[in-house]
């Protein structure tokens, strides 16, 4: 009989009205790799937070090596041998590798650090699992892949028997990722048990022994890796017939926005890798992808807040590769930022001020703001976009998320615009607000606006887009028509599996 390393039994957790985990059971054998697959919001993070004692489950229990974990005690989880490797590293760049690893591992009152012992142990672990690092290197000088190794070593240093890896390859290059999988397999062979959270089907197929699919808070399927294939998994993950709502066919007009081999670097990392797309007037191009794959960089580049990019970005034939916010606004380029509280509004300022902040020149003369016109403009938006509970003079932070988003949409779309860049326009909104936002975007499209929609919400992309491209690791897939696409195909695209064309031209065939 195989040893059970981890036994999560009938765990449920409710937040307000949403059931984040609904009677989930999951087992992990010693030396086994289980992949946890699911879209954003499927309940993976909640489940892992329960495992680590950050949340107390409403029902259910967690056993590690046959012993029940007390709920809500992170330290007990660590002591029982559960280790977590976060997607966003929990490391200190100014400290050395060894210091990062050994923090908190010795009694805080002991009069001297056992650096020698810790170094030997670290080197031993590194040797055993082939995770070579220089213990004395400053962490910030290491590559992202090496930093990930340190993050794993940190968990192993605490004698973890069960290791959870959250999207371990999200930040790695392909070669680094290959090495990572080899390491993981090796670790399993040496008796460690691993849970591996991912969206990438090829990785999952190549690495895991068993795959558990979460959807809407439930464990909907479990497959041994030999019994399934990427296509089936994609369908299970998305889990529904992705039907398009009926809407008027698009009538694409002139070429509005075009990217040719655009590459964007930030702090030495390529965030966008030679991307291509074309966007016409009167159509919606949906960019689908799990967040953190380059969407933010794409939005910054188009919105005018990014640094210098390579390649060519053109708007109605004019090059805009290095443009700034002011140019974008002058060109009639509407922008909905990804995070409305962070970039969209200044919460402490009045609604009317937020309404005109990005078009102050139009509402001022000789540096004086035409307050009357600005308030009238804000009132117009409030009326036309049905912003509830708003008065032009009140602070915008008083508005609910949905109404704040309507305000942002309104300040962009109150008059027809030639191009609309919408990043996650309905994120975090309730259903009524989502519908209102979508209606506005389709209205703009009907008026001939070219819409670039960046979203990680499959339903949203299907509901709005005419064509779809996936973004994975800073690369854009070729575009597919939204009429021809099905769940399986989208799942594969989001997993980074599209036919390698090797030819840039093919990817902007409409």
């Amino acid at each position, binding site marked *: 009989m195989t040893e059970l390393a981890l036994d999560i039994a009938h765990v449920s957790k409710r937040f307000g009205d949403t059931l984040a985990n609904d009677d989930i059971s999951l087992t992990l054998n010693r030396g086994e790799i289980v992949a946890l697959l699911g879209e954003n919001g499927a309940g993976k993070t909640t489940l892992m937070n329960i495992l680590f004692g950050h949340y107390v489950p409403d029902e259910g229990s967690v056993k590690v090596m046959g012993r029940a974990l007390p709920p809500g005690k992170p330290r007990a989880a660590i002591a029982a041998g559960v280790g977590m490797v976060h997607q966003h590293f*929990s*490391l200190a760049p100014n*400290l050395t590798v060894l*210091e990062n690893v*050994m*923090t908190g591992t010795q009694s*805080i009152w002991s009069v001297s650090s056992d650096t020698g012992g810790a170094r030997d142990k670290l080197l031993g672990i590194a040797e055993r699992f082939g995770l070579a690092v220089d213990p004395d290197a400053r962490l910030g000088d290491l590559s992202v892949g090496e930093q990930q190794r340190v993050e794993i070593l940190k968990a192993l240093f605490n004698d973890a028997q069960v290791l959870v890896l959250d999207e371990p390859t999200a930040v790695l290059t392909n070669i680094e990722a290959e090495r990572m999988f080899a390491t993981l397999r090796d670790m399993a062979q040496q008796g460690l048990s691993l849970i591996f959270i991912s969206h990438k089907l090829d990785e999952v197929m190549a690495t895991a022994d068993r795959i558990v699919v979460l959807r809407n808070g439930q464990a909907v399927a479990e497959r041994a890796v030999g019994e399934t294939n990427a296509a089936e998994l994609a369908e299970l993950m998305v889990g529904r017939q992705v039907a398009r709502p009926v809407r008027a066919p698009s009538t694409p007009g002139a070429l509005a926005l075009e990217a040719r081999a655009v590459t964007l670097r930030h702090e030495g990392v390529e965030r966008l890798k030679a991307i291509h797309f074309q966007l016409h007037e009167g159509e919606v191009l949906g960019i689908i992808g799990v967040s953190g794959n380059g969407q933010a960089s794409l939005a910054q580049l188009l919105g005018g807040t990014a640094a210098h990019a390579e390649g060519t970005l053109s708007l109605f034939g004019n090059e805009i590769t290095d443009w700034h916010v002011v140019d974008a606004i002058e060109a009639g380029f509407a922008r909905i930022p990804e995070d409305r509280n962070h970039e969209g509004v200044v919460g402490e300022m009045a609604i009317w001020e937020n309404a005109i902040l990005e078009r102050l020149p139009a509402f001022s003369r000789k540096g004086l703001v035409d307050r009357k016109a600005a308030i009238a403009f804000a009132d117009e938006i409030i009326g036309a976009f049905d912003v509830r509970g708003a008065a032009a003079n009140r602070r915008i932070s008083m508005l609910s998320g949905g109404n704040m988003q309507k305000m942002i949409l309104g300040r962009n779309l109150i008059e027809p615009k030639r191009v609309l860049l919408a990043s996650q326009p309905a994120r975090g909104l309730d259903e009524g607000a989502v519908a209102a936002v979508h209606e506005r975007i389709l209205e703009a499209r009907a008026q001939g606006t070219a819409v670039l929609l960046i979203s990680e919400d499959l339903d949203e992309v299907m509901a709005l887009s005419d064509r779809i491209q996936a973004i994975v690791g800073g690369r854009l897939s070729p575009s597919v028509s939204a009429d021809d696409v099905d769940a399986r195909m989208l799942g594969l695209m989001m997993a980074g599996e599209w036919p390698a064309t090797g030819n840039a031209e093919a990817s902007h065939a409409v």
Partner: protein
Amino acid sequence: MNEIADILASAGLWSAVLRIATPLIFGTLGALLCERAGVLNLGIEGIMTFGAMVGWLAVYNGADLWTGVLVAALCGGAFGALHAGLTVTLGLSQHVSGLGVTLFSASFSYYIFRLLVPVSGTPPTVEPFQPIAIPGLSDLPFVGPALFTQTTPTYLAIVLVIVLGYLVFKTPMGLAIRMTGENPHAAEAQGVNPIVIRYGCVIFGSALMAIGGSFLTLSAFNSFFPTMVQGRGWICIALVVFAMWRPSRALLGALLFAFFDAFQFRLQTVLSGVVPYQVFLMIPYILSIAALAFMARRARVPQALMQPFRRGER
């Protein structure tokens, strides 16, 4: 230029360097400890003032000198707890809270002083720490009177540099402190409580600042008067940057600083009438600003400095 050579060759200069450096060493180490844990403590100027006042007051009222130092340390710790409450528990702006603590502790010390010590023509004095000649070493020619005839707090300051350097870099607690100042979330994930660490460092660091202040009234001088701290606290904040958050370099910085201070003081007598004395007095402040500009880019600032830590909030 013979005069300058004479100044440099006098044991008095080098003895003064150590004396002037002592409060700076205490203050800089205190500020350094706070910042290593991620808290900027601009309360330093006022806390040093309070330490100077309360240490002196205790001795004036009959306590022995070490009790005076201890009282100063306890009061400094109390102000540290106030600053920690505002910046760690409530997560308020470390700039504004620190200035508030400085304004409060400085004015409070003047108030208490005025209340308990009536105005008189000659300021009341206490019997301060006396220099102790270290047997053997103090008999060395030149070096003896220059370096080994100091008061005990000065020797203590030097020892403290070594102790803190060891604590910060060679013990698990020091590592926990540094991790808290770099990434409190990572510290917490590894079982270190960043809130406790920050409270501890701010309270202990503030106690050191107050001890530095008490040196002014119990060793360098023998009475208290308002404004006697004269921006030394702010200079310590600049010295922390110069020291790149390392105790050993803090000692170096304080000594360098004190050297210029002692040197300019002696140069004044030589150059009096040629260069106004204010130019010499400006030198420490301008040097601090220059050091900041010089070091700011190359120093590795603790990454979480001035970042409030709230559980579960990133």
